C-alpha cells in the first residue's frame, strides 16, 4: 500500500486546513480497514463492473425530473455514459446505436453546423465535443457520416476570437481554454484541422500558463486541472508543445496528487476530487510526450505512437528524433558534436523504470476504495453522491493509470479490474480513435 502521509503538520489553523483535515478523516476509515486486511483486500479489491454498467444503461434509457437542470447538457450525458460503458467493455446493441445517432445527429445537430445541448438549442462547442465523441464511440458508418463536417468547420471558425486568438464557446459566448480544446479535438478527429482552425491557439494557451506552472481559463486566472488538461491537449493537437514551460507545468502537475488521499485535487490547497483522476491523471502521458520532444535521450519516443499522435515536424515519421532540426526548439538539448542521439548510449543515461510521473497505485486505491457506489456509479469523494460526470472521469482516470507503454499494464487488485485503454488526448478508447481517424482519411492525431 502507498505510504500515506497526512497534510500539513502546521498548527496554524484556517478554513482550508480544517476542510482538508475533515476530508482526510472521512477517508481514514476506508484506508484503515484496508491496511489491516491488506493481503486479502488487495486480491479482492474490485471494480464493481456490473453495477456500473447497470447504472449507465439505466441513465441512457431514462432520467428522472431531477435531471431538468441538465436539460442543456444532454449530449454530455450521452458521452459520459457511452464512454463509461466503452471503458467497461460493454457492447451496445444496434438499436441503441441508431437511437444515439438519431438523437444527436438529427435532433441536436444544428442545420448551420455544430450541436446544441438538446433539440432546438443553440449550437455550442461543449455539446459539439460531447456529441462528436459520442458518435465516434458508436462508430457506425451512419454515426460518423451523419456529422456535417463542412458546416462544423465553418461553425468552429466562426467562433474564433481574433483578439485573444482563443475560441468562444458559442456565438457571443465566453472565451476560455475549453473552447480551444473542444474545437481542436473534434477538428483533429474529423480531419478538418487545417491551418485556419489551429493557427494562433498556441499563443492563446501560452498566455494562460500561470506563475504556478499550471494553466487557467484565461490570462491571469488561477491554474486549474480542467483548464490545464484542455490547454496542454490543445497544444499537442496544434503541434506546438514547445510553447509551454513544460518544467513548470510538470512540477505543478505532480504537486496536485494528494499525499494522503491518493487522488488528485484540481487547484493548490483545494480538496481531492475523483474527476481530476482524469483531468490531472491524463496530463501525465501528455507531459511524457512533451518531455520526449525535448529530451529524447531521457524519454522513450514510443510515447508518440502510444498516444496515436504525430509530434511536431521536427521529427521523422518513425517518431525518432531528428537532431538536424533541433535548432527549432527553444530549449533544445545540446548534444556533443560527434554524438548521435540515435546511438545506443543507454549505459550512460539509463532509461527510467517506466510509468507515469504520478503514483498509479495510490490513485487506484482512492478510486476503488473510496469512490465507488455499491449500487453502481462513482462519486467525487466519500459523502458525495454518484453522478454520470464523476463516473466517466473516474473510470477514465483509472484507465489512464492502468495502461503503460514501456511495461505491461499496472492494475491494482484483481486483474479483471482492467479497463479498456482510453486515448488521453481525446478521451475515447484507442480503438475508436483509430477507426474514426481511418474513416476520415488520417492515421494519427
Amino acid at each position: 500500500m502507498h505510504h500515506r502521509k497526512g497534510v500539513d503538520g502546521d498548527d496554524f489553523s484556517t478554513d482550508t486546513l480544517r476542510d482538508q483535515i475533515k476530508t482526510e478523516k472521512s477517508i481514514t476509515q476506508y484506508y484503515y480497514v484496508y491496511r489491516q486486511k491488506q493481503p486479502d483486500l488487495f486480491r479482492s479489491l474490485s471494480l464493481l463492473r456490473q453495477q456500473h454498467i447497470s447504472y449507465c444503461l439505466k441513465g441512457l434509457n431514462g432520467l428522472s425530473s431531477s435531471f431538468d437542470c441538465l436539460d442543456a447538457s444532454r449530449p454530455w450525458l450521452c458521452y459520459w455514459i457511452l464512454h463509461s460503458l466503452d471503458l467497461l467493455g460493454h457492447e451496445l446493441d444496434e438499436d441503441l446505436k441508431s437511437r444515439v445517432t438519431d438523437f444527436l445527429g438529427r435532433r441536436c445537430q444544428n442545420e448551420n453546423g455544430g450541436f446544441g445541448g438538446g433539440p432546438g438549442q443553440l449550437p455550442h462547442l461543449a455539446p459539439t465535443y460531447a456529441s462528436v465523441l459520442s458518435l465516434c464511440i458508436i462508430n457506425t458508418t451512419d454515426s460518423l457520416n451523419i456529422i456535417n463536417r463542412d458546416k462544423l468547420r465553418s461553425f468552429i471558425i466562426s467562433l474564433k476570437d481574433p483578439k485573444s486568438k482563443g475560441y468562444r464557446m458559442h456565438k457571443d459566448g465566453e472565451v476560455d481554454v475549453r473552447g480551444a480544446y473542444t474545437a481542436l479535438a473534434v477538428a483533429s478527429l474529423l480531419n478538418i484541422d487545417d491551418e485556419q482552425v489551429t493557427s494562433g491557439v498556441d499563443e492563446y494557451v501560452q498566455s494562460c500558463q500561470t506563475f504556478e506552472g499550471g494553466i487557467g481559463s484565461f490570462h491571469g486566472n488561477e491554474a486549474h486541472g480542467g483548464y490545464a488538461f484542455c490547454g496542454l491537449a490543445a497544444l499537442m493537437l496544434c503541434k506546438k508543445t514547445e510553447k509551454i514551460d513544460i518544467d513548470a507545468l510538470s512540477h505543478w502537475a505532480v504537486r496536485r496528487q494528494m499525499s494522503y488521499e491518493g487522488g488528485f485535487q484540481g487547484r493548490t490547497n483545494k480538496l481531492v476530487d475523483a474527476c481530476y483522476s482524469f483531468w490531472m491523471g491524463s496530463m501525465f502521458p501528455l507531459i511524457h510526450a512533451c518531455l520526449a520532444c525535448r529530451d529524447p535521450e531521457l524519454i522513450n519516443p514510443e510515447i508518440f505512437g502510444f498516444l496515436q499522435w504525430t509530434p511536431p515536424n521536427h521529427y521523422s515519421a518513425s517518431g525518432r528524433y531528428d537532431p538536424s532540426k533541433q535548432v527549432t526548439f527553444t530549449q533544445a538539448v545540446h548534444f556533443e558534436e560527434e554524438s548521435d542521439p540515435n546511438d545506443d548510449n543507454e549505459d550512460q543515461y539509463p532509461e527510467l523504470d517506466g510509468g507515469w510521473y504520478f503514483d498509479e497505485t495510490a490513485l487506484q486505491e482512492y478510486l476503488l476504495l473510496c469512490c465507488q457506489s455499491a449500487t453502481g456509479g462513482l462519486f467525487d469523494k466519500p459523502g458525495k453522491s454518484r453522478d454520470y460526470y464523476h463516473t466517466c472521469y473516474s473510470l477514465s482516470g483509472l484507465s489512464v493509470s492502468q495502461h503503460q507503454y514501456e511495461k505491461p499494464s499496472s492494475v491494482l487488485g484483481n486483474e479483471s479490474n482492467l479497463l479498456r485503454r482510453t486515448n488521453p488526448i481525446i478521451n475515447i478508447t484507442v480503438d475508436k480513435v483509430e477507426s474514426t481517424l481511418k474513416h476520415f482519411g488520417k492515421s494519427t492525431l
Partner: protein
Amino acid sequence: MSNIYVPFKDRSEWNDVTPIEQDDGPNPVVPIAYTDKFRDTMNYFRAVLKNNEISERALALTDEVINLNAANYTAWYYRRDLKEEMEYTDAMTEENQKNYQVWYHRQAILEKSRDVGSELELVARIISEDSKNYHAWVHRQWVVKEFNLWSGELQYLDGLIKDDVRNNSAWNHRFFVISHLDPSLSDKTRLEEIKYAFTSINLAPNNESPWNYAKGVASAKGGSDAAYQALKEGAEALLKRAPVNPFGHYVLLDCCTRSGTNQDLERGIVLCDNLVKFDGIRKKYWEFRKQKLSKDLAH
C-alpha cells in the same frame, strides 16, 4: 407574486401562441422525465424563439426558463438581445454562483452599459461566502482590468490572506495585480513580494500557496538573480528550522537547476534523493529530475 404555477394555456396573455413540443424523435436516448411545469414552460419558450418575439412577456418567459434551469445558455443568449438588465442578474448571480452563463451574462451587460456600479462589492460578497469560487475570481479580474479598478485590490487581498493564508485564489489574484502595477517586475518589487510571501511561510511552512507565489515572482519574465538569491536564502533559513519541509527542497532544487554549476547540480541531486524519501508519492518524478541533473552534470 403567487408561487402557484399557472399552466400557460390558462394564461390569457399567451392565448395567441401555439406551444412547440421538443423534437426528441421517436425513441430518444437520455430522455428526461421533465416535470409538467418544465415541459410546459419550455414548449412556450420554443414558440417564442421560433417567432423571434421581442416583448415584455418574452422577457418574463426567459426568467421562468432560467429559474428552472440556469444552465440554459440559449435563454441567456436570447435575453441578452432583449434587454440590459442588471438587477435581475444580481439576484440570479447570488443564487447560481457556480454557473458559467450567469457570470458571462454580467460581463456582456457591463460591456454594453459601461456602468460598473458596485460590481466589486457584489463579487466580494460572493467570495466571502465561497472564497475559492473560480467564476467569481475570473469575473473580478475582468472587472478590475476592464474598468481600471486596481487601487483597492492589494488591501482587499491582505484581508483575505489574513483570514485564510491558504486561499490560493487570493494569492493568484495578488500576482495578477502586482504584474499590472509593475509589468516589468523590477528587483525591488520582486524582493518585496518574496518578503511578503515568507511572512506567510513562517506562519505555516507547509502551505504551498506562498511558496508557489515566491517562486513565481522570482522566475517570471526570465527570472532575476537577485530574486532567486532571496528565495534561496529564505528556503535555507526555513530548512534549518524544518529540515524535511518539501517546499523548501523544491525551491532550492529550482535554484540549483537554474544556476547549473557543478556544485549546485550535485547539491540538486542530494535534494532529489531527500525528496524521494519524504515526498514518496512523487518519487518517480524526483527520480526523473535527478536523472536530468546527472545528465547535465556529465556534460
